[in-house]
């Protein structure tokens, strides 16, 4: 009888301990997860601060004095006296070189925290935020479509080569990779414009849609896609090669692993091995690169957009560089850098969610 009681007591103790243990484990897991993300967020914050500082230093390095130049411009346009013009310039540009460095810095930081990234030097009614709102969506439109297409096609091509070596397809795809990486993407843009815009006149080479036609709804969308076709191809040609190469490298690594051999020994047909074993495992390291490329989407390529006269943020960047409009340059660069840092942080964190093996690494 006593034995039975002892046994039940022991059992219930064991159960209680198990419960306590599992709750404790759960809390520890949460703690680790939070610490994991906190570390990333901390690094991101430090980087953001450093970049903001860098932006400030950039302004200080600018040759010439923007306030004076703008004041003189105002004087000529509106015929004001120098003092008034200068005051107006200072208020419009949010920049007073006479104040001490600390005041300038605090003003700069305050305006950043208010998400005010600066105004143009030449046209004070145009702020960086306005430019971003107006032009960024178009850039994102073509960059994201290009990225998605390149990634999917590149992964498919890369994994097709890795399985069977020494076949026709491998030669063809390898040659494509080499040729496409030899010519920079903006030169591909020129070639495409030449072939499809001038010689064969199949695709439009200017702008994002035909303003003169005044379309709406579905026809407008089709027109937009029609105009976006060539820029997207220009972006994609080189990127497909890059992803295919990366995927092939990753596949070669995976092919050496034992579970591929074990799957073959189990009688699983080749197609399924390539699909589920090879591609899924080889894709994992590429997903971090994918997330990092997401950040590059926001910058666009100034050259491609200039060549195609596509109203995107890259084109604005190019224009501001050509006109030496330093405030816009600084604002846009800050914006792009912020996005890159945040995207990298998200990418790092996402990777731990996707790959079950990374979860324990804090």
């Amino acid at each position, binding site marked *: 009888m006593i034995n039975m009681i002892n046994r039940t007591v022991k059992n219930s103790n064991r159960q209680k301990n198990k419960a306590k243990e599992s709750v404790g484990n759960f809390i520890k897991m949460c703690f680790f997860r939070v610490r994991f993300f906190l570390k990333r967020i901390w690094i991101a914050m430090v980087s953001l601060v450093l970049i903001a500082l860098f932006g400030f230093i950039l302004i200080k390095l600018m040759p010439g004095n923007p306030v004076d130049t703008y004041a003189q411009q105002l004087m000529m346009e509106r015929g004001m006296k120098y003092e008034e013009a200068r005051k107006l310039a200072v208020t419009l540009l949010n920049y007073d070189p006479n104040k001490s460095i600390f005041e300038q810095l605090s003003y700069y930081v305050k305006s950043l925290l208010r998400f005010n990234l600066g105004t143009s030097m030449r046209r004070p009614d145009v702020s960086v935020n306005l430019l971003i709102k107006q032009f960024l969506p178009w850039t994102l439109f073509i960059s994201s479509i290009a990225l998605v297409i390149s990634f999917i096609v590149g992964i498919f091509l890369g994994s097709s080569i890795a399985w069977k070596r020494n076949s026709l397809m491998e030669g063809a795809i390898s040659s494509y990779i080499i040729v496409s990486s030899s010519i920079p993407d903006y030169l591909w843009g020129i070639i495409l414009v030449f072939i499809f815009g001038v010689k064969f006149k199949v695709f439009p080479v200017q702008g994002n849609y035909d303003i003169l036609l005044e379309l709406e709804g579905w026809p407008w969308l089709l027109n937009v896609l029609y105009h976006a076709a060539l820029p997207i191809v220009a972006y994609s040609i080189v990127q497909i090669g890059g992803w295919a190469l990366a995927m092939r490298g990753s596949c070669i690594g995976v092919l050496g692993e034992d579970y591929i051999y074990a799957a073959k020994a189990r009688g699983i047909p080749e197609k399924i091995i390539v699909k589920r074993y090879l591609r899924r495992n080889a894709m994992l390291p590429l997903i971090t690169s994918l997330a990092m490329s997401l950040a*590059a989407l926001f910058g666009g390529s100034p050259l491609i957009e200039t060549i195609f006269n596509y109203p995107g943020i890259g084109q604005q*960047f190019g224009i501001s560089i050509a006109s030496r409009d330093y405030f816009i*340059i600084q604002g846009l660069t800050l914006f792009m*850098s912020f996005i890159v840092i945040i995207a990298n942080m998200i990418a790092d964190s996402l990777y731990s969610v996707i790959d079950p093996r990374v979860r324990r690494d804090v």
Partner: protein
Amino acid sequence: MSQQNRDIQQERIKQYLTEEKMFKRADRKEDYSLSRSIREISVKNVKKGFLAIFNMSTWGKAVQVIRKGGKAARKACTNAVKKWMVVLSLGRAATWKNLVIGLWKFIKMFFSNKKATAGTIIMLFFVLMALFGRLIIPYDPITDENNKYLPPSTEHLLGTDNLGRDVLGQLVYGSRDVLTIALLTSLITVFIGTSIGMLSGLAGGVIDNIIQIITNLFLSIPSFPVLLIFASFFTIEDPFSFAMVLSIWGWAGLSRAVRAQIVSLRERDFIQICKVMNLSKSHIIFKEMFPNIATYILINFIVIMRNAITGSVGIMMMGLADFQPSNWGAMLLRAKDTGAILIPEATYFLFAPIVAIMIFQMGAILLANGLDETLNPRLRED
């Protein structure tokens, strides 16, 4: 371990260490004038000195000095070559015979690889074109409006540009600048990247963390916009400053990769053994670790050359560095601005630099891949 074995081991360590001392003593016996002229060509005035490599007279001077210097100078040369063999991880050449054998094995392996051979041929072609092309195909900067956009003929093999100048002549003349920029950028980037990477990897601790954060910063900010910014700040007038601008942002990737390799090497057994054997730090760094990353650095050298050309042509096409109208990027800029895309006769002018760039890049890619395949044992299909 028995006393006998311990004695044998002591003998071996002593022998190894005396070999080291012999190398150092041989270096000190160098001919003074030889080292002086070498220094003239190298570090003190990098800009002038580096470009002097392309100048035939400096080579002539060097050959003269070696001839006059006699036996000591020749021995100094041999030792220098041997040192570089070790650094390039081609093996420790204890004798002249071993050196030749090692080199020959490498050459055989290298040229049996199709990619490497093709790449070398293309690069050699461009180097020769850069060095000697001007002697064969003259460049006539005189503009002649009447000869605008002539089609290819025996006189102008690739036609003429918008101002009547010979396209092929411009290509050949500009190749020297293009190659100089690429080479300079590579050298500077590799130098900065490797040093910072090695410093960061070997030092560890706080220095490592600080350098890591800075490197991350440099990597995060997208490079092309920053290059454009710097190009607009600093006026670019000659290849050297162009190379500096291009390398300011490029060293980050290399330094991170080098650091990763050094960190992984640091923990490996053979380095720990060196520490136990009490070998000096510089020995560990230069004779043990460096050969392991040397191949990686060499391949990166070529990759950076590729990126340098892409970047420089990009900057030139934005109109930010227009110092030589014969530079390929400048040719493209003029082609774009004068609407050569639309004018059918200007096709050759438009495509000549594009094709030249394409072939050069292909050569670089093939060479880099070929080198990787020969030097990386994992990729060999053997």
